[in-house]
């Protein structure tokens, strides 16, 4: 285990050498990729490229070995019980679509209920809406409390309606609030529900141990964990994965095909139709292996220190509505300049080379409940610096001055 050294850490990202003037605080949208990830992808294409699982030739066998090694590495990274519990897909959105579609009919029957929360990303709302309405399944939504956290009492009350599936995010992509996931999972399991965790923001913040969490599914996107875009992971317990009807059908996922019927292959291949994103899986595994070697507690502490400095600086800027709480926060701050539209604030920050997101962050229902047009979101990563915090605070001050002049 290497100690975390912020300067050395940032030095491994060429993006910053190519974009020296920018303060990048849009990490919840996507993260930058360290050299080790870029090199793993390049090296695969330059040296080992071949299709997997098919060729009789040695080259294909080598590519297959590298791809399946990536699965092993990722299984180790989240402490999955077995390698076939790692299903490669294009990202958390694809995973949630697979789960929502895949549980209809096998688990969810007309008249059944699914429970989500009011803090979800559209990716954990719309697939359920789409498939529930077609299957006559009712979708319930846990409301938020006054601190914009999931109302735990309402959660317990809605669990009493015996939903067959409960799906919620580990960490809110809008506010950065860390949900009491372990507690919510155990409550949901006590009522017999299957549990689905959207780990898109959670995977990067904390060391995830899926066996300790004990959720049936935990899904995430590679690009939000220093990995390439286009690859993600659907983790599921074996029994839970067996319940899923494949959303995609095609090559690789079958063991026998004739024109009257086909027999499905075993896990994980049953849920991985077509040629997978081989280089993406290898790139993501490189990110996981690289992270495994860095002291994650120190990384977390460093990010918490940046966040603390940022919150302290915000206090000195008047006229802000800060939506995020500094407590149980994974490094995301959503705020508004009072009376101003987030798009204006984000554009004025952009003029000052501070990259943030302004808008509704794929969480329209959340903002309509609050009667807000959206928010400006600052999201921090361990490669950010104290200078980034200072520059962004200054830029925000300037933006507020121009807007309220």
């Amino acid at each position, binding site marked *: 285990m290497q100690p975390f050294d912020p300067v050395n850490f940032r030095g491994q990202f060429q993006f910053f050498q190519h974009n020296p003037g920018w303060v990048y605080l849009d990490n919840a949208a996507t993260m930058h990729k360290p050299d080790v990830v870029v090199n793993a992808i390049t090296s695969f294409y330059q040296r080992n490229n071949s299709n997997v699982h098919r060729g009789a030739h040695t080259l294909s066998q080598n590519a297959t070995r590298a791809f399946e090694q990536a699965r092993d590495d990722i299984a180790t990274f989240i402490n999955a019980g077995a390698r076939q519990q790692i299903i490669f897909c294009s990202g958390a959105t694809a995973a949630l679509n697979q789960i929502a579609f895949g549980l209809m009919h096998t688990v969810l029957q007309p008249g059944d209920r699914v429970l989500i929360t009011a803090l979800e990303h559209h990716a954990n709302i719309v697939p359920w809406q789409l498939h529930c309405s077609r299957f006559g399944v009712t979708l319930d939504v846990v409301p938020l409390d006054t601190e914009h956290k999931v109302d735990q009492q309402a959660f317990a009350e809605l669990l009493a309606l015996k939903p067959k599936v409960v799906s919620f995010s580990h960490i809110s992509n809008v506010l950065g609030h860390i949900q009491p996931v372990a507690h919510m999972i155990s409550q949901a399991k006590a009522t017999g529900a299957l549990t689905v965790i959207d780990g898109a923001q959670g995977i990067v913040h904390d060391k995830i141990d899926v066996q300790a969490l004990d959720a049936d599914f935990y899904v995430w996107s590679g690009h939000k964990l220093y990995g390439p875009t286009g690859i993600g992971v659907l983790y599921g317990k074996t029994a839970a994965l067996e319940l899923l009807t494949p959303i995609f059908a095609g090559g690789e996922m079958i063991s026998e095909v004739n024109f009257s019927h086909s027999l499905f292959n075993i896990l994980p291949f049953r849920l991985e139709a077509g040629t997978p994103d081989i280089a993406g899986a290898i790139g993501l595994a490189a990110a996981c292996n690289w992270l495994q070697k860095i002291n994650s507690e120190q990384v977390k502490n460093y990010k918490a220190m940046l966040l603390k400095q940022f919150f302290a600086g915000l206090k000195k800027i008047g006229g802000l509505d800060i939506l995020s709480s500094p407590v149980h926060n994974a490094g995301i701050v959503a705020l508004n300049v009072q009376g101003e*539209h987030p*798009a204006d604030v984000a554009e004025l920050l952009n003029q000052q080379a501070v990259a943030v997101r302004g808008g509704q962050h794929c969480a329209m229902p959340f903002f309509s409940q609050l009667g807000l*047009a*959206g928010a400006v979101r600052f999201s921090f990563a361990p490669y950010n610096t104290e200078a980034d915090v200072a520059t962004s605070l200054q830029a925000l001050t300037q933006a507020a001055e*121009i807007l309220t002049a």
Partner: protein
Amino acid sequence: MTLDQLLTDTKPALSQIYAEDLPELSQARDWQSKYRILMQLGRKLPPIPEKMKQPSLLVKGCESRAWLMHYYNQHQDQHFFVLDSEARIVKGLMAIMLSLVNGMSNAELKKFELAHAFDKLNLKPYLSQSRGSGLNAMMARIKDCCR
């Protein structure tokens, strides 16, 4: 407030924007002044009252919400518009756009190219920056009003 009244109030604002604010914008020295001018510009357009903002007037494809109202004077072959946006920078840019096309004939409006016009006024950087802001979506909606 009626559409007639909004149209009447919008016209002189647009003439002023075209005659006074555009030259001032092109002479602004730093980005701060440019954005201050843009925001003042937007403020000159009369806002569409909340009650009149029917869902059908909403222009889709914007990060911030924007609304467009239209009136075509058939006798004189002229298109007139009223618009509003909840974001001030976007509203300023839309005001400039409107100052260029308001009162155009059907044929003129069909021919109008926003990118070309903004280029001539040295405003092109704003157009490319604002891809997501809905400026192009608003222009498309204005063009849809052509007969």
